[in-house]
């Protein structure tokens, strides 16, 4: 049956309600099984030895003493993970990051690993591995790394995207450019121009659950991996590629997930655990410590961004330009490119140009972090927009409304928009009571907008109807934010049955077709589309079964309110058949009833949000307290409003932490100084007010219920909203995130000195 995903307005019974989530009881009672909760008989403890140096050639590794230690069952180095990338640079980078080959590229880079019978033997074995390093000059700062005299990390990196191609290697991996029009001509028409440099520091996703897995390689070439991941199918593919396994022989089962935020879309120690298991011939459990998580997994880019925006006195932006320099860790990435694409996406601009520079540095390999790269770009752009509005003498919201993109606008990164939510979120902000609430002493208000692309992708769902008429849907997108509840609601809606009669489970990689991972805010969007399609297929089957039961033509049967109903003058005295009625007879009418769907979920639809933030700053200490915060975002259709609000709040809180205190602090030796939650300061509950939310519902034309992804956009505006609020509170413009107390006091002191 051809599936029509287009939006149709209809009365909804389940979608939009707020039932309890199916995974809630297990999580609050401690029964839920996270990555480290899985165990196998005879499993070994895996541990990783990491480089203490930011940049060092590995001269020699001697593992003999560790191998001789009683209780050690395997020691692996890069030699046990041979390069099978066939020249694919991205695959090689993942491999080299999992286990350093010739050089350690950052403090915390894995150089060897052990599997032993218990934790104390594994710990002792790590101390017996001798690694001889030749320490090399290192660089961690993005601007310093771009300088001509910077130590070059990789002699094979020649900047791509520039003409003519450079003849000497550098730390700049790639240049990208987006935009349209003529910015120079645009600036010439401007009455007012703001031109500034902004910096943001590197942050970590800060997921509470560290990376954890159990790997088991069997002698017949099959293998199992139980792991905390956002994407079991992607982990399967990447691990199989790195270890030279057949994809079909590796089965990956995802655990419950204690936060990922993009950091669990990449593999870290999982290939190492598989390599240890392969060598030891026993299952290996590998759980990263918090320190390892900070030193060797997933941070976002540190950035340095130049912004120039010009406007006429009436508030029309005439030209906008940004140059974005993003660190990517030791390997080339596309993080600046994403920043360059998102920079001016909120605005309808005649002349716009953005340039992104990917810069390699001696820091951990950068990973996706919730709307990756967009928050930093938004901080720079929305700070400059705010300052420009101020200079012109226009209200910051009105200035943005005047320049907001809308249906038909050509975006700064290329595509022409359909119906979008930036204008409505700004209008909602303008009329929100928060915007006109009085401010107290030492308080300031800021606001900012944000954009994220959203993604759909490959999706596969199985829907099975049990003999009692209850329904199971098996999905391949890991539930990171309540999607099992949302998908159950949507399935219930489509079939016309109660929410309680649907159970959603996350299937393993051997039980379902390929699914892209839970990223790009796609989990609910894409899997619900597949679930609707599967439900419609199951309805077709049930109509056929009803036709058999009644011995009438299927064309005379409609599906309504969870029942097969006979229509037409000759049949309308037949009592409708429920799902349970039809399921009970399935054995006599053709066997089990199921619906299946595989599709590419196109048309995710771009997402926009506007945030308002009030802060109070102690001018003597720089201490900043967020006193009120409001998130306004377009959800298309909020399937389960609690979890939509949860996403809005969670993103805002992560952004507030990033804006105020979170940062990787490196010593002069290139070592990370704060690899723990004590000194890497994410906000605690008492730091925050209740985050107020306002859900706008502008239906996505490409989803049957109008759903858009909601997971990521909420982290995009907070850096700028908080910085604008602080700047307004202390009357000094802040250019460097985080706006920590020492930075605020330094800025105030500098201003006092003139």
């Amino acid at each position, binding site marked *: 049956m051809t599936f029509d995903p287009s939006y149709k307005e209809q009365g909804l019974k389940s979608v939009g309600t707020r039932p309890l989530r199916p995974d809630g009881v297990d999580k609050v009672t401690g029964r839920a099984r996270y990555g480290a909760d899985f165990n196998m008989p005879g499993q070994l403890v895996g541990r990783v030895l990491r480089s203490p140096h930011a940049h060092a050639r590995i001269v020699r590794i001697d593992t003999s003493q560790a191998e001789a230690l009683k209780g050690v069952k395997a020691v692996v180095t890069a030699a046990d993970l041979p390069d099978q990338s066939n020249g694919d640079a991205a695959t090689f980078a993942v491999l080299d990051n999992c286990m350093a080959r010739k050089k350690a590229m950052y403090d915390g880079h894995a150089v060897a690993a052990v599997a032993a019978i218990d934790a104390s033997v594994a710990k002792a074995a790590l101390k017996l591995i001798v690694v001889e390093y030749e320490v090399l000059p290192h660089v961690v700062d993005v601007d310093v790394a771009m300088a001509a005299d910077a130590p070059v990390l990789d002699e094979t990196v020649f900047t791509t995207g520039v003409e003519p191609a450079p003849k000497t290697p550098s730390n700049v991996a790639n240049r990208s450019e987006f935009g349209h029009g003529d910015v120079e001509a645009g600036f010439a028409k401007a009455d007012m121009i703001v031109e500034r440099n902004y910096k943001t520091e590197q942050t970590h996703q800060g997921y509470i659950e560290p990376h954890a897995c159990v790997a088991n390689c069997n002698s017949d070439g099959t293998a199992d991996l139980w792991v905390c991941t956002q994407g079991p199918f992607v982990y399967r593919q990447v691990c199989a590629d790195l270890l030279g396994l057949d994809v079909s022989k590796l089965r990956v089962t995802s655990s419950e997930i204690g936060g990922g935020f993009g950091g669990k879309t990449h593999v870290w120690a999982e290939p190492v655990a598989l390599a240890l298991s392969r060598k030891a011939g026993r299952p290996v459990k590998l759980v990263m410590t918090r320190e390892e998580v900070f030193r060797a997994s997933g941070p976002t880019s540190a950035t340095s961004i130049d912004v120039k925006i010009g406007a006429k006195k009436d508030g029309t932006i005439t030209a906008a330009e940004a140059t974005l320099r993003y660190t990517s860790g030791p390997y080339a990435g596309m993080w600046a490119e994403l920043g360059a694409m998102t920079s001016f996406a909120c605005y309808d601009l005649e002349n716009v140009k953005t340039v992104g520079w990917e810069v390699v540095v001696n820091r951990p390999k950068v990973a996706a972090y919730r709307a990756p790269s967009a928050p930093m770009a938004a901080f720079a752009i929305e700070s400059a927009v705010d300052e420009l509005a101020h200079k012109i003498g226009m209200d910051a919201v009105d200035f943005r409304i005047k320049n907001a993109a809308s249906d038909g606008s050509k975006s700064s990164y290329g595509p022409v928009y359909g119906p979008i939510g930036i204008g409505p979120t700004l209008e909602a902000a303008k009329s929100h009571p928060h915007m006109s609430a009085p401010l107290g002493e030492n308080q300031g208000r800021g606001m900012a907008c944000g954009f994220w692309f959203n993604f759909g992708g490959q999706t596969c769902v199985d829907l099975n109807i049990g003999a009692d008429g209850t329904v199971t849907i098996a999905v391949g997108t890991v539930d990171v934010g309540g999607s099992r509840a949302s998908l159950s609601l949507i399935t219930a809606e489509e079939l016309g049955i109660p929410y309680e009669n649907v159970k959603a489970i996350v299937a393993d990689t051997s039980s379902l077709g390929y699914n892209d991972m839970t990223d790009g805010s796609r989990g609910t969007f894409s899997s619900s589309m597949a679930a609707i399609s599967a439900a419609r297929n199951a309805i077709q089957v049930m109509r056929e079964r009803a036709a058999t039961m009644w011995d009438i033509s299927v064309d005379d049967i409609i599906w309504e309110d969870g029942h097969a109903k006979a229509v037409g003058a000759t049949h309308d005295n037949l009592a409708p058949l429920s799902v349970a009625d039809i399921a009970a007879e399935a054995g006599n009418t053709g066997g089990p009833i199921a619906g299946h769907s595989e599709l590419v979920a196109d048309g995710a639809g771009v997402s926009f949000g506007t945030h308002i933030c009030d802060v109070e700053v102690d001018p003597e200490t720089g201490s900043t307290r967020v006193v009120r915060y409001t998130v306004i975002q377009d959800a298309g259709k909020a399937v389960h409003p609690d979890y939509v609000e949860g996403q809005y709040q969670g993103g805002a809180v992560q952004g507030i932490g990033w804006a105020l*205190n979170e940062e990787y602090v490196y010593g002069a030796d290139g070592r990370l100084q*704060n690899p723990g939650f*004590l000194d890497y300061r994410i906000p*605690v509950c008492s*730091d925050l007010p209740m985050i107020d939310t306002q859900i706008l519902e502008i239906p996505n034309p490409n989803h049957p219920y109008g759903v858009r992804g909601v997971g990521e956009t909420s982290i995009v505006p907070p850096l700028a909203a908080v910085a604008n609020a602080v700047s307004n509170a202390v009357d000094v413009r802040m250019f460097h995130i985080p706006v920590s*107390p*020492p930075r605020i*006091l*330094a800025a105030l*002191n500098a201003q006092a000195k003139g």
Partner: protein
Amino acid sequence: MRYESPATIENAVDLLANSDGHAFVLAGGTDLLVRMKGDDFNASLVVDIKSVDGMGQIEETADGFVIGAAVPCAALSEHAALVAAWPGVVEAANLIGSTQVQSRCTMSGNLCNASPAADSVPAMVAANAQARIIGPDGRRTIDVADVPTAPGQTSLAKGEIIEAILLPKPGARTGDAYLRFIPRTEMDIAVVGAAVNLTLDTDGTVQTARVVLGAVAPSVVVVDAAADALLGSKLSEDTLKSVEVACVAASNPIDDKRGTVEFRNQVAGVLGRRAAAIAFERAGGQS
């Protein structure tokens, strides 16, 4: 690793004195248990003192308060007489960690952990608190200020443990206060701490004062110049400014992940001034 939970203090001392040097005292454990998870930590013996008779008691005597080494900080805030006598000490002890941590952590442990940023130590030093130590050679009592000698190091000899913290009975018209700066609201380590303890004369002027800074030097800093500025005053604007200037001058911090030298110096002055004002008000002073 061996875990022992002796019932008597003598037994605890014996265990520690006869250990191989990798022995640790466990009171609340809020520092020790975290350290034990680190790869570089090696312990052969842990002596839990919570079962030792009297260690969990707060005793009010004619001279003051005897606070057993295993008394959790949360219990201090439930002792009405102690709160009335030393509100600054009690609030300092109850800024450590979080509510959960405070139900386990102890002031003795905070002292013996010997962190320059310990919250309870500046307040105890300002209050002229002493530590009663027991060891193989018997008991001795020293000023709290003399326990930590450097970050992570104490003057306690092998086999010695703190048995109790002794706080004097405050004189009439005494007030104390402790303030600390952290970028968050809890679960953080002091970037700067400032404690003030002062007593007023019958005419309402400051008769004695102690001003103590934490987290701005390897050990706590007793700021005599700030105390001198307070003496004889009723905390005029000028006096408070002098306290601030003296605290800034006495502050001798390092640049690290928690704050810069410039920031710590400036905030040491601000907190010293603010703590003095609170202590003065608690003593019944009127400017």
